[in-house]
């Protein structure tokens, strides 16, 4: 399959899932009425449902999925490690912690920007910490262990913060921050998160050439003229800003960044740069599909989307670990 064909197919899949996501929901609206309401025609309640409830949900599903797929692909390329993923490495959990601290201390009430900024700071700290713990180019094991340590700490701190909150509802929200959800998000959340994610995407795409050079090893990449330090900054900042934005409005949705690049890697060849765009499109399709599934399986019950991605992702992760172990000397 040529690269162009693959990208065209993935784009079509994403567009299809976007439309399906707009058409599925607990309010019983038929296809024609839904699409008319989307453009402001038809009865007022239907217009509200389409424009204020389903459209922001679908936009967030698409952009957050793209962010997770892209971040996973970039991290795997940069760390040259197939198990790298914002969820597995605890970056999403740390972003959650940052967002939780911003929200429950009341900072987010002063300025709504505090929420994504808090999540971003959490994400940056975790990436830097994982690198410091694992070293730049050491094996899989130390990287995963560092990720587990950082992730567990961030999750525990998040739960502690929520349990200590004087608001009785706060401890119920642990589930949201741990598993993520797209339900009842609004255009305000889109406006808050998408600019951050877009900045992150630009940084990650800018790292593409450097990632290709890095496949040959840090030293060779340097002699090839790639600035390894610059690639590193682009990946760290790109992942942190994008995942921070995504997590601050939807919680941490796991495993997307792990699964998608793996499925697509054999199809694009071994170039990390080609994998970036493909993973972004694939991640968007996967999260949109998962969000549709969540609403079809149990309409109105608000199953967290992270439950579904984990059900797909966790067995995949086990398989990947076993495969990696077999390849190890």
């Amino acid at each position, binding site marked *: 399959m040529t690269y162009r064909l693959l990208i065209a197919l993935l784009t079509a899949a994403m567009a299809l899932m976007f439309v399906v996501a707009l058409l599925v929901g607990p309010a019983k609206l038929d296809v024609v009425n839904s699409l008319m309401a989307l453009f402001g025609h038809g009865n007022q309640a239907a217009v509200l449902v389409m424009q204020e409830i389903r459209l922001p949900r679908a936009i967030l599903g698409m952009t957050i999925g793209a962010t997770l797929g892209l971040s996973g692909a970039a991290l795997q390329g940069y760390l040259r490690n197939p198990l790298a993923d914002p969820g597995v490495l605890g970056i999403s959990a740390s972003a959650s912690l940052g967002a939780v601290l911003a929200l429950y201390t009341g900072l987010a009430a002063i300025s709504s920007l505090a929420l994504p900024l808090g999540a971003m700071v959490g994400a940056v700290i975790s990436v830097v910490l994982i690198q410091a713990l694992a070293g730049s180019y050491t094996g899989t094991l130390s990287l995963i262990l560092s990720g587990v340590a950082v992730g567990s700490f961030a999750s525990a701190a998040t739960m502690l913060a929520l349990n200590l909150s004087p608001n009785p509802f706060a401890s*119920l929200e642990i589930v949201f921050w741990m598993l993520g959800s797209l339900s009842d998000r609004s255009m305000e959340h889109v406006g808050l998160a998408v600019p951050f994610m877009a900045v992150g995407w630009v940084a990650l795409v800018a790292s593409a050439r450097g990632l290709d050079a890095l496949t040959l090893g840090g030293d060779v990449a340097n002699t090839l003229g790639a600035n390894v330090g610059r690639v590193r900054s682009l990946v760290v900042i790109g992942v942190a800003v994008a995942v921070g934005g995504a997590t601050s409005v939807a919680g941490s949705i796991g495993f997307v960044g792990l699964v998608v690049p793996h499925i697509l890697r054999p199809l694009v060849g071994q170039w990390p740069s080609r994998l970036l765009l493909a993973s972004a499109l694939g991640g968007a399709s996967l999260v949109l599909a998962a969000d549709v599934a969540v609403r079809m399986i149990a309409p109105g019950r608000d199953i967290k989307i992270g439950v579904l991605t984990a059900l797909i992702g966790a067995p995949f992760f086990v398989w990947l670990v076993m495969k990696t172990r077999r390849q190890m000397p």
Partner: protein
Amino acid sequence: MYADAGVYRINYGRAEEIFLMRPDVVLSGAFSKPTTVSMLRRLGIRVELFEPAASFAGIQAAIVKMGRVLGRREAAAEVLSAFNKEVAELARQPALGKRAAMYYANSYTSGGETLAAEIVKRAGLENLGSQLGFTGTVKLPLEVLVMGRPDLIVGGRGMTKAKSRSFEIVNHPAVRALTRNHAALVLSDQYWICGTPFTLRAVKNLAATARKAFGEGKR
């Protein structure tokens, strides 16, 4: 009322501290920890459990039971007859024929067989949750709330100033659009939560707000 409550000693529902108070009788909610209740009973303390009232009948039964437990049946009978008198007065008000929707933190709503539904009914309104066939306190998807076209939304108010995601939902643009266009917004308060004679205040406040919003008995 909170000043009067200040003279009572607070306990945190632990068997040890309650035993040390040497009470003659312990009044407890049916949802208290069963291990604590059974331990107190083993220690020879009389424990009376009260079900949270989910209806006016439940409130009436609780008043009678409280009188019996405390040995003050006459006082209870007085409270009960005053309560029944007010209920009868409320029943004489004309129904408004408007539809109210409960919408609390985390998008929960009250369907049938809940105290909130009874409050809405006694205030002369229809409850969207009951009309949709829900019973108990359940999740109401935002889409379904919007499609239900409520005339009045009873929103939850945070019990503390501490921030929480749960209450964001009441500020969702779709809910704001509903209230901007036609629906009145009422915030529930302490009178809504537990079934007591004070529940009548919730009914009166709601009925007064609805009358003001929609005009006296007009359809």
